[in-house]
């Protein structure tokens, strides 16, 4: 006995399923159409019944579909479909260990012996339907003595279909061949011959048909006659490394939370170790309870929970749960949830461990785990970003621009044995940070004398000047526009000093640095 579960308009249901999870809406009454295709030629690919009733139909162009403002248009999302499919497989696995993901939105499961657990077929399918509905899917379910009959009945018939053994052919006779999983060219050939339904196909004499369509034709004919026999191809769900914990009473302090997180991490890492895996990526999701008293003055009902998410990434996979606990600790200290925690969810993304052989004369670099902890500590002390949005902790890199002194900070990753290709400069320039404001006297545009704000009383004669070296850019927006005229000057102080000075767009002079 085989049960097939099919979610019609799966691409639309997958989208609705995700919004059901996120918003808890009454989902199926909302008309939704899914668009697919190249961006310049999006067409309606799938839609739910509510959208169909509004007048929209598959194949319409985006512009045509937009004429129905009541219908929500969404772009097709393979990710949502994959997660919807995974949810359906999970659901089916509760009823049988032999589960086949027959096509997107369709599951076939081997239900032999399930009657002992769930009773007669009608109880079994009712239970399955209830589970799918809880997930947010409206499904057709069919039960038959072979997987194909069950599968196509679920595809073709609305609601629940129970086919008694021996009645398969009769039941599926009226189904259209377009339901068959066959190449489009074969379907076109069959239809051009006037063979449109399972009944038409079943009625053809077998020998001539096989002469024309080969063994595949025979297989199709057997399906159409409700006589196909095959083994299921069970899904092999890759193991997921997820731990959840629900607190009896929401907690507000970090310490008890870390205590629980430690336990969850231990459990997660035990599972990873059993499979000789490590992880370099950990996601934490906390469900927080909002303190409702703050929102009493609002009329509208606010959701009383919200999600708090953090992620930890390591450069290399590890099996050491203590490292990750320490990183979690540092991260949560820096970014406290701020509300009471109701439940915690931890997922480790598994990754194969990597082992490296160090050279005999190679200098020991810090262990990646220790380095990450150090960086996290530093971030805790100095903060994450500066005012320009740059990371505060990391290594500076020069930006690809003519704008002097422009740099970014990238994640710190020591690169051993790499030599800079830049030739050794003949002069070294000590750059002043920040640049020192100066007063420069010019004659015919050339600097003649310079005075420093730090020594307001003294002015120094410029004995040689080379320049201007002019750069400008950022013209796409006035606020980003910059320009700079640099001069290399020699100043006579007790000794001769060589400086780099510049004048910015606001005609202000600065000393940029001093040549050694």
């Amino acid at each position, binding site marked *: 006995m085989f049960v097939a579960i099919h979610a019609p308009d799966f691409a639309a249901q997958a989208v609705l399923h995700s919004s059901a999870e996120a918003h808890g809406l009454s989902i199926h009454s909302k008309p939704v159409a899914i668009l697919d295709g190249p961006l310049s030629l999006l067409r309606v690919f799938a839609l739910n019944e509510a959208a169909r009733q509004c007048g929209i139909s598959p194949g319409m162009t985006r512009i045509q579909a937009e004429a129905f403002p009541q219908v929500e248009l969404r772009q097709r999302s393979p990710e949502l479909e994959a997660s919807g499919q995974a949810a359906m497989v999970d659901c089916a696995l509760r009823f049988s260990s032999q589960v086949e993901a027959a096509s997107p939105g369709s599951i076939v499961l081997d239900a032999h012996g399930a009657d002992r657990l769930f009773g007669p077929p009608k109880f079994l399918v009712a239970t399955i339907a209830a589970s799918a509905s809880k997930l947010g899917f409206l499904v057709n379910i069919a039960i038959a003595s072979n997987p194909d009959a069950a599968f196509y009945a679920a595809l073709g018939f609305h609601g629940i279909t129970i086919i008694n053994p021996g009645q398969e052919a009769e039941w599926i006779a009226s189904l259209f061949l377009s339901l068959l999983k066959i190449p489009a060219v074969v379907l076109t050939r069959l239809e051009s011959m*006037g063979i449109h339904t399972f009944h038409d196909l079943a009625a053809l004499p077998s020998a001539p048909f096989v*002469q024309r369509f080969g063994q595949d034709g025979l297989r199709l004919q057997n399906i159409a006659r409700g006589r196909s026999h095959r083994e299921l191809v069970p899904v092999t769900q890759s193991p997921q490394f997820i731990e959840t914990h629900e607190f009896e009473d929401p907690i507000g302090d970090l310490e008890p939370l870390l205590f629980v997180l430690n336990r969850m991490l231990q459990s997660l890492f035990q599972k990873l170790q059993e499979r000789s895996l490590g992880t370099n990526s950990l996601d934490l999701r906390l469900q927080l309870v909002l303190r409702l008293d703050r929102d009493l003055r609002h009329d509208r009902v606010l959701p009383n929970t919200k999600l708090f998410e953090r992620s930890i990434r390591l450069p290399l996979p590890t099996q050491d749960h203590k490292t990750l606990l320490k990183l979690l600790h540092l991260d949560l200290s820096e970014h406290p949830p701020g509300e009471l925690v109701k439940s915690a969810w931890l997922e480790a993304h598994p990754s194969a461990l990597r082992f490296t052989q160090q050279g005999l004369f190679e200098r020991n670099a810090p262990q990646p785990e220790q380095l990450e902890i150090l960086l996290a500590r530093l971030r805790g002390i100095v903060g994450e970003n500066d005012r320009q949005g740059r990371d505060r902790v990391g290594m500076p890199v020069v930006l690809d621009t003519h704008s002097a002194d422009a740099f970014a900070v990238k994640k710190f990753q020591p690169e051993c044995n790499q030599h800079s290709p830049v030739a050794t400069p003949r002069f070294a320039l000590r750059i002043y940070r920040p640049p020192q404001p100066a007063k420069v006297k010019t004659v015919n545009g050339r600097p003649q004398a310079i005075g420093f704000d730090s020594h307001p009383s003294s002015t120094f004669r410029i004995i040689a000047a080379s320049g201007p070296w002019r*750069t400008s850019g950022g013209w796409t927006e006035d606020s980003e526009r910059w320009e700079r005229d640099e001069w290399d000057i020699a100043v006579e102080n007790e000794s001769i000093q060589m400086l780099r000075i510049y004048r910015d767009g606001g005609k202000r002079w600065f000393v940029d640095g001093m040549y050694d």
Partner: protein
Amino acid sequence: MQYAELHARSAFSFLEGASSPEDIAIGAAALGLPSIAILDRDGVYGCPRFHFEAMKQRIKALIGAEVTVANPRIKGVSREIRYALLTESQTGYRNLCRLITAYKLREKHKGEGHSSPDEIANFSQGLILLTGGVEGPLAAALDRGGLAEATSELDRLIAIFGRGNIYVELQRHFNRSEEERNQAAIELARRFHLPLVATNGVQYAKPADREILDAFTCIRHKKTMLTAGTLLAENAERFIRSQEQMCAIFADLPEAIANTLEAACRLNFTLSDLGYEFPAFPIPDGETPNSFLRKRTEEGARNRYSRNPELYEKAMRQIDRELNLIAKLNLAGYFLIVWDLIRFCSRNNILVQGRGSAANSAVCYSLSITAVDPIGMDLLFERFLSEERGEWPDIDLDLPSGDQREKVIQYVYQKYGRAGAAMTANVITYRGRSAAREMGKVLGFDAAALNKLSSLIGSFEWKGPGDSIENQFKKGGFNLRHPRIAKYLDLCQRIQDLPRHLGQHSGGMIVCQGRLDSVVPLEPASMPGRVVAQWDKTDCEALRIVKIDLLGLGMMAVLEECLDLIPEHYGHSVDLAHLPQDDSQVYEALRRADTVGWFQVESEAQRASLPRNSPRVFYDIVVQVALIRPGPIVGQMTNPYLERRQKRQPVSYPHPSLEPVLKRTLGVPLFQEQLLRMAMACANFSGGEAEELRRALGSKRSQARMREIEQKLREGMTANDISPTTQDEIVRFISSFALYGFPESHSASFALIAYASGYFKCNYLAAFTAAILNNQPMGFYSPAVLVRDAQRHGLRVRPIDILKSECRCSIEREADNVVLRLGLNYVSGLRQQTAVAIVERRRLREYRTINELKLRVPELQENEFSMLASIGALNSLNGGTHRRDALWQVARAARSVGPLLREIEEHQNNSPLAPMTIEERLVADYQGVGLTTGRHPMSYRRKELNAMNVTPAADLAGKRNGHVVRIAGNVIVKQRPGTAKGLMFISLEDETGVARAVIMPDMFDKYRVTIMRDKYLLIEGKLQNVDNVVTVRATHVAQLEISAATTQSHDFH
């Protein structure tokens, strides 16, 4: 001290320069520079425009180019070197052109290409080398190996160019490494005793244009402004600098400034000394080109006019006048060259007809270049040629599109040599949509925003002052105050009309005596066997280079095929030049607007005006061709003409002096020639001046020139005592026509083809239909509509049959009738080679069974085989079968079996499949052929349609105006013209004919989805039946379930 700029790039360095050549010349003149050189990358693309603008600005245009040379890899990076070459003499210019041609043509595909130092050595005479800036050979040598390498590089360059022809170039853009190079260059120049020269390596006219250069840099490197980094310009210093600025910057090296002028004085070549000679036509001894042309013309004139002595005399007078002018302008050779092409076409049975202003010339008519009699039609010669203009005449030849036209093009190459002939270029410039897309990418807009933006600009046409990009942006809801959007708009506007890349003109060819590659560099075209010159047709015209347009016209191919089919199937031949001019069937069909498939007069708009124009003589067709054009429509001439034609409006003239000019068109100006004659009649312009007036008004380039010539026109009119109000009216007539007007000669040439197409359709329907089906795509209607129209005119059309069909549509004789047989080319998905194999092997022996067909034509693929079966093409095999039966047999025959079993027939021949229903046959026909030869899908539902009170299309004309009717049919045309204020015109076809409906904007909004989506429509509305033009003004539109067949409609919206 005087300074000349010796190194500037224009936007014709394609993405490496940001100002047009004209702007460079104007900029230099404004700063008082005496001369400026343009050195574009690997070409002289912009030189003609630069040359003429410089002449206007009274500065010296120095010509040269930057020639790319491959450079060995330096530090793992391969960098190109550019040799900045200036032309000192005509020899130098010729060498430069030949050098560029040599390496461009070496490339197999259209592309950049590069030269080698050895090649440069071969062509170095007459050229002066500047050592260049950062991309020059000296900078590359310094990079490679410092002073030592640069020394040997200079030695090599001196050996190539000679010591006196090299200038060590210094550029100062306030950059440290550039200055470091300069110091090395100065040292080398002193060591080698070479002169220093200062340039600014100009890439744009004004500092602000650096933004465009940066944007172009992003496009060139496929980057955005955010990711381009140091690829962008360091600063904005590569603009045209004044003498004072350059002197200040090079104050330490005054000789570098002084030398610029010295070098500029040496550069004596200008494009005025191009040295172009058009090919000498071989003439017998003792003849001159003029005498030879006169003899050929007089011979031709005798043939053309001998039957009408009065006309002959008039023609000879005109011919004499024309020949004298031709001799004076030294153009005899040009006419002989075109005459030679006509002779080639005639020898090779290639139909050819001159169009355009050439049809104004009696010489062209006598030489058989054109087919319109300018004397009989009293056409104005000055529109074609005038002494004042000093330009080459423009002769366009219409040829059958496809292979025949290619034969003529290849003949030109063969006659004048690969280096003696080339297609003219077509400079593709940044326009609304391309500018919007590219600038959007540069500013890093995402794909969705880009799509939105370009769709916004998509429908934009530069029509009037209100239609600016800015207004389009506003209408699209963009916030122009947002700095990024404002900058985007600004960039889009600034790059308008700057060159983007070089294309090939559709038919323009230039030829030269000797080597064309000495006149202009040639490049390979994307199409094999063709070369393209670097100049477009306007530049060639301006530089007096002979140009002949060889244009492909689908209808010429149709007429040519008709001329082959008619003798074969109708038993007599037809001469296109001697068609009966007063065929009543042709004029009746025109008056009924029964013109589907005709040349030029078949569109819905033409057909809607035909009954009102009611053509009775050939000249009415000439008017009809010109009537539905932007000129008369925008100038609001169409309706007054039609009203006067129907005698509802009195014929009047703005001024009595204009009566002779406008009499033929009932006082309404319709043709460009009339505009010229008006200026001649009312303002005493000469023919040449009048043509000058048309050109000035026709080009939007110079407002000042337009005002100047308008003033002259008004002065002439005032002298003739024409009142200011009448003057205003005349000026309005003239200006609305200058831009869009259609020349009468052109219209007459088209009318001849239109008449011929109508004559063939009315008298040789099978031949005409076969020919037009064989030359698709062309015209306004799909093959399905053409076939049904022919069927309604009584032609029997037979379906595709494997035993009878040729590759192309053909004619068969059945009893006393000729019938049309669809060709195998109409089978969707059937490859040409398979169709040829089927027909060739059938000629040896007829096929009897499907199995035999498969065995004898192994090229037949399974899908082709099934398609033939499903459209009924195999029904005559196996002793007669039905489509499903054939499909069943094909399914078996198509499966490969071993040789042992291959020829065994199936015992049980009967298929278990039911024959196709009518609907299934329709679906299969439309899917496999795109049309059905059977009944119209609507005819099967006529009873139901009658019950629904639907009026057949043919009965509409009999209904009263204002009657509420229902029409239904297959949508064959949907049109929403921009000028129609949102109205949509729909043509519905049923088995009786075509009904037209107009949808008002509110109705369109209401039924948008149905209208856009459904192939069969039911439309209810009030009938407008005026002047035999029948239209239904829709009040209700509904979907109609007739057939699932995938019919096609021709949509314009």
